[in-house]
């Protein structure tokens, strides 16, 4: 097992109190697995991604642990996390546009970056990685501003995986890109796994259909908790959690017209995580809610690899 997260709790400090952005999440990512992390804004998916590599100043590690290749990550300790970053865990940031120093040629910047981490630049590896994502080698002689959005995103992907990290986190890396660029970036990302550059990957996005294209397993989060986790195909074809079902039903796909099939959204909005209600957090919006939902449903493995946190998962 490459990554094992157990009962992870991360809170945000605010003026009004702690926001429980991540409230007890447990999951595993196997060797060579791409986990797609999906959910709507505020569900905790970005918090989870950040927690695995670098918490920002307002985040606090409240409980639970993260193990990578059998070793516990000191995620709450910024300094002790440093040796792991880039070497063991790496991140492709959402805004690659601003991730590169605009005053340096890319090749030089990569060399400086590696030196600052105490590693010598291996030109051959760098070039083979450029080939892998389909970038010409000349990009090293260019300034970041000369690259298109998709090229920059792929360049950042190459940089963040140069040291063959065990785990790669990609947070909404395609949401600012055009449809056609999105495809090439997502395909290049999957290529890192195929070629064994990274062992496992957490791919965070709000776009369920994009996750479906490259992830092996999809995990849907709701209000700081795991709602459902299943193999990609199962998740799309036979979801069990009412939230996942409603979410998938609200997605228009090419081929659906409102005159033929009028889709519906999910009424209501997620609860405030400042003081979340007891019991199932989807209860207020759930058409299946019944008395028992006042107690919190534990995540249960209904089939091998298919975990659902709902009392009516079998229904």
């Amino acid at each position, binding site marked *: 097992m490459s990554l094992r997260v157990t009962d992870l709790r991360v809170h945000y400090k605010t003026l009004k109190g702690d926001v429980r952005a991540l409230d007890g999440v447990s999951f595993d990512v196997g060797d060579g697995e791409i986990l797609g992390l999906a959910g709507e804004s505020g569900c905790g998916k970005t918090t989870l991604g950040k927690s695995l590599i670098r918490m920002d100043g307002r985040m606090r590690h409240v409980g639970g642990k993260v193990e990578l290749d059998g070793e516990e990550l000191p995620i709450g300790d910024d300094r002790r996390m440093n040796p792991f970053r880039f070497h063991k865990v790496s991140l492709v940031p959402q805004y690659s546009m601003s991730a590169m120093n605009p005053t340096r040629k890319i090749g030089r910047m990569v060399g400086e970056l590696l030196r600052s981490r105490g590693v010598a630049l291996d030109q051959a590896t760098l070039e083979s990685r450029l080939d892998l994502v389909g970038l010409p080698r000349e990009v090293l002689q260019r300034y970041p501003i000369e690259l298109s959005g998709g090229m920059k995103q792929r360049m950042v992907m190459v940089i963040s995986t140069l040291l063959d990290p065990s785990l790669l986190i990609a947070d909404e890396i395609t949401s600012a890109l055009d449809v056609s660029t999105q495809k090439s970036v997502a395909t290049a990302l999957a290529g890192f796994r195929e070629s064994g550059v990274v062992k496992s990957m957490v791919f965070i996005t709000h776009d369920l*259909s994009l996750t479906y294209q490259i992830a092996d397993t999809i995990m849907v989060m709701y209000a700081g908790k795991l709602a459902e986790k299943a193999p990609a195909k199962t998740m799309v074809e036979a979801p069990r959690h009412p939230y996942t079902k409603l979410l998938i039903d*609200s997605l228009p796909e090419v081929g659906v017209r409102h005159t033929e099939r009028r889709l519906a959204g999910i009424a209501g909005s997620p609860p405030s995580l400042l003081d979340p209600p007891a019991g199932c957090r989807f209860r207020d919006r759930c058409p299946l809610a019944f008395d028992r939902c006042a107690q919190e449903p534990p995540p249960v493995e209904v089939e091998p690899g298919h975990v659902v946190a709902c009392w009516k998962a079998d229904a």
Partner: protein
Amino acid sequence: MLRLDNVTKVYKVGAFGGKTLTAVDRVSFDVRPGEVVSLIGESGSGKSTLGRMILGLVPASGGSITFEGTPVKPGKAYYRNVQGVFQDPFSTFNPVFKADRVFAMIREAYFPGVADADWTARLRTALQDVRLDPDQVLGKFPHQLSGGQLQRLLIARALLLDIRLLVADEITSMLDASTRIDVLNVLADLKERGLGVLYITHDLSLGHYLAERTVVLRHGEVVETGVTEAVFTRPLHPYTRQLLAAVPRMHAPWEDAEPVETCLYHKHGATGRLYAAAEDHLVACARLGDCPKES
């Protein structure tokens, strides 16, 4: 109702305005009452510039935009008939004021003589038309409302006027999946009331869900336009095909499409001329006859 005829927008760029950038190049289409036209394009396609020109927020450099036969002239009279909703709801509401101030602005400019009770009734009707509960959304600050609620407030604002055309520029791209569809359904309802809607988007599936007719833009030019059904099921221009192939779908893996650069014909498309492939299906491709029509 709304007609665009060879509309062009050229920006001056560079330190002394020495270079020019053509953002929109000889675009022509029209929007009729009671129909949704979706304007589909990627970033840099000029789709938002077109929307802003139709709203009179930026002047066109060439061609003509007419509404009911008269050229667009920004001002109170025009905005009574034509309104817009923009991409980022949190930027469309002035963050220091309450959200319902957008209604007060309309009242002040257009209906200063309307009595309070009458106005309240109108406001409630408009909010119900966009499926919002007046008691839930009035008197709140923008940050206390969700993106979907804010966008629907803006549509309600437009409905307070006697609008005939709504320009909706990427209005769902910042919204969550579970609320975005409700906003789209509201747009579909407007159509039932006889309004014309220009729905600008980069998302093909949303355009397909909503629109009667589709205009596909690339680098400021129309590459293909026609009845939505025809454009989506029998795409003729290689760019349209490439776009459709790149859309991630559920239940089906990505298929490969020839990249647009390899198309022998696409250069010929840049003549500003559209060729009729069928009735109400135009494509900017000079060698249309050679194309396999079914793909």
